């Protein structure tokens, strides 16, 4: 029988793998992918707690807001990546350490 714990473990694993991706990647797009994974792990927890708790709708509304914020974050983040690439010809996050051209 599937219980809350199963979903929490999956969410935790997604979060950890996202964290590892963010910490080890040098490619800015890869870092953004890691952030998406982290947000998805949190989202699984939100919906699972909603399902097995007293407020199912609240959990799902939170998940919707998180999805929305993730979309906004991805759009702005990728725009920044493109801008960095146009200036520095690289998207290595270690190279992007200047505030001016």
């Amino acid at each position, binding site marked *: *029988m*599937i*219980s809350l*714990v*199963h*979903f*929490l473990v*999956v*969410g*935790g*694993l*997604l*979060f*950890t*793998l*996202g*964290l590892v*991706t963010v*910490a*080890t*990647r*040098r490619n800015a*797009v*890869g870092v*953004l*992918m890691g952030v*998406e*994974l982290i947000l*998805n792990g949190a*989202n*699984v927890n939100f*919906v*699972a707690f*909603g*399902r*097995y*708790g007293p407020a*199912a*709708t*609240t959990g*799902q*509304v939170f*998940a*919707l807001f998180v*999805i*929305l*914020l*993730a979309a*906004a974050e*991805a*759009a*702005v983040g*990728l*725009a*920044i*990546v*493109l801008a960095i*690439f*146009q200036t520095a010809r690289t*998207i290595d996050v270690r190279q992007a350490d200047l505030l001016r051209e």
Partner: protein
Amino acid sequence: MSPLRRTVLWALATAAVIAFVVAMGRMAIGPAAEEAARPAPGAVGLPDVLFFLLAAVAVGGAAAVAISRNILRSAVGLLAALLGVGGLYVFLSADFVAITQVLVYIGGVLVLVLFAVMLTSRITEVAVSNTSVGAFGGILLFVAVAPVLAAVAVLGPWSAREPAPLAPTTRVIGDALLTRWLLPFEVASLLLLATLVGAVVMARKEIKVE
């Protein structure tokens, strides 16, 4: 940094992580595990198999994102992870969230990511496209974080209730968005507008007047 110093630092980090995990196991997880009641294992049915399949797709995709050396393979792994998570939402009786996940994440975010990959990195050069700081640091971080989260998930004192039967959720979510969560909803639309304008302003090519 000299190689010797780097080796010493890595060894120290490894020792710290191992000490942390052992201490957690001894002091927090061990006593809690003895007190926790074990639920009797029930018969394995089709839902269980489906759940583990979806969870494997999600976690496997996430692992591909974290491990793969090729950024395009990472993107495909992200696709698998997002699809798996969407399936888990269906499992949790969150049909509207699942559809939103597919529409927004896979239809929007993933396409954006692929565009960024194509526009920026020299994807044919695998070595350049997705270098990572080092597998060792990643493994260290994973070992430090994953067991703790899993232990909290398994041993936490969740007062889980018997879930309600599956029902469509679109109507209640619409009600909730336009009553209790009206202000966040409106702020979110403002945020999306600002994002739209900001992304266009940042990503456009500046034409300099010579």
